[in-house]
């Protein structure tokens, strides 16, 4: 029997403390054990400790005791293990069990300490679930990012596809000029008194035109191949200047005049230059298409940047028919298009790009006629 001091220690323990003999019969049951399991010490003492285990574990416990008695090798003593425990009311709870043998006891007696770890386990499970959720969210986000990147690229390729005829024409120009310069040069050299001055001029021009063709191809390659680049300081004017060969190709094909009105005081913004190129090209393409059906030879687009603090940081205005009123509210919805072979993605992609830069794309009718699409950045109070 435990001494009074021992009883005091047992009753002060936060964990349940139970003593059993070599057959598993409980010989002591402290206060915490009473609280934890719902049995009084009187009820518990004298009963087999299997009472505190779910039925499936009871048989095992008897085996453990028999094995220890036979071999003297303990599997649990001094280690502690997580087990399932059974309350009087029949509920099962996770518990941390540590077991010690009472020194020199023959036959062996054991002390078991049991702690309810329901809260820890729940916290742990919650943590795991949270970690899983976070991983899933990150994966979904990454997937979305990849999808968006792919969509952007498809968008760029679609835009380029629409411009293919213009680009082919644009490349044909320097080639045609080169051929003509070369022939002229040949003729100057074939004269009775070869005109070396003209011939030299012709070869200079040939080199110039070849470089020009190369520059067009380079712009094209940049625009198609580049993945979404790392955000960096981007000068919107430079973005537009880089696009000029592609824009002029398209404009020429559709006999549309273009005025560039770029504000040299424009501050660089933090952004993705490829995406911004795509945005500009989409707006310009739309304007060109809006004008291409116009019989009036005065087809014109103004591409403007404005550093004055106006909400229209960038605007593309045409003097075409403008957007029909019933379309205005649906302009930026994906797959909404007024063009017979349009994808309806251009403006929606442009809007996505603008949003990614903390801004948005807006529309207003132009004066006296036509459409104005503009990009504004965050901090702009206009809706």
């Amino acid at each position, binding site marked *: 029997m435990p001494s009074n001091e021992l009883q005091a220690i047992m009753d002060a323990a936060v964990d349940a403390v139970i003593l059993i003999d070599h057959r598993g019969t409980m010989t002591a049951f402290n206060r915490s054990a009473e609280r934890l399991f719902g049995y009084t010490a009187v009820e518990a003492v004298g009963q087999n400790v299997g009472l505190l285990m779910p039925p499936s574990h009871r048989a095992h416990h008897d085996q453990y005791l028999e094995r220890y008695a036979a071999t003297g090798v303990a599997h649990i003593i001094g280690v502690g293990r997580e087990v399932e425990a059974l309350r009087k009311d029949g509920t099962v709870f996770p518990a941390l069990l540590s077991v010690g043998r009472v020194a020199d006891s023959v036959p062996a007696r054991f002390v078991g300490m049991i702690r309810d770890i329901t809260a820890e386990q729940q916290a742990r499970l919650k943590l795991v679930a949270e970690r899983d959720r976070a991983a899933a969210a990150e994966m979904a986000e990454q997937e979305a990012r990849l999808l968006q990147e792919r969509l952007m690229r498809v968008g760029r390729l679609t835009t380029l596809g629409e411009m293919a005829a213009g680009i082919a024409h644009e490349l044909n120009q320097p080639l045609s*000029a080169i051929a*003509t310069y070369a022939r002229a040069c040949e003729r100057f050299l074939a004269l009775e008194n070869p005109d070396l001055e*003209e011939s030299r001029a012709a070869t200079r021009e040939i080199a110039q035109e070849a470089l020009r063709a190369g520059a067009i191809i380079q712009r094209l390659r940049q625009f198609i191949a580049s993945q979404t680049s790392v955000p960096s300081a981007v000068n919107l004017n430079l973005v537009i200047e880089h696009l000029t060969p592609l824009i002029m190709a398209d404009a020429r094909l559709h006999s549309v*005049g273009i005025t560039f009105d770029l504000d040299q005081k424009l501050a660089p913004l933090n952004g993705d230059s490829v995406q911004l190129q795509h945005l500009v090209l989409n707006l310009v393409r739309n304007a060109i298409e809006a004008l291409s059906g116009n019989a009036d030879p005065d087809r014109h687009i103004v591409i403007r940047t404005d550093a004055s603090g106006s909400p229209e940081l960038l605007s593309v205005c045409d003097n075409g028919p403008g957007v029909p009123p019933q379309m205005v509210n649906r302009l930026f919805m994906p797959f909404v298009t007024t063009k017979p072979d349009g994808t309806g993605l251009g403006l929606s992609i442009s809007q996505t790009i603008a949003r990614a830069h903390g801004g948005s794309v807006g529309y207003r009718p132009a004066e006296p006629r036509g459409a104005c699409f503009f990009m504004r950045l965050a901090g702009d109070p206009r809706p």
Partner: protein
Amino acid sequence: MRDTTPTVHIVDDDDGVRSSIRMLMKSVGLPAVTFASAQEFLTGYQPERGGCLVLDIRMPGMSGLELQQELNRRGAVIPVIFITGHGDVPMAVEAMRHGAFEFLQKPFRDQELIDRVQQAMQRDQETRESLREHARIQARLASLTPRECEVMELLTAGKANKVMAHELGLSQRTVEIHRARVMEKMEARSLAQLVRMTLDVQ
């Protein structure tokens, strides 16, 4: 005096194409002037200056086809050779329907362009000559009195002096005098020539 030397007028918005064609023309001794847009051409063009027009179809702003139609509206006679980077048939048909002299695709063979330019300039010279002749005949016709006009009408209809005298209620002698005045004013050496003149201006 304005310069009326037959000249190749080159209208192309592309600097390279434009100046390469000018250089090619220079290499065969053809005077050329260049314009960077249809509008620039319309502003700077002197109708009395002959030659031909080498015109790009696709240009920003007013297209080559639109310029051709504007020139037609203005009654210009200058032959138009279209050059285009796109060999689209409907456009070629449209250009030819409006009286284009030729439709070449870029890049073109230099000799072909030179040949066509020379032919076009030849055609322009002929057209202008016949227009001038036309104007001269008109001026002569305008100098005839009403009576002389009547005589000329009957004369070119193959009526003999006697018949004319009867129809006009004049003496044969008076008809002969009018007839001589008509031939003199119209600078016609024969009746056949006079008939051709009246056919020309009809």
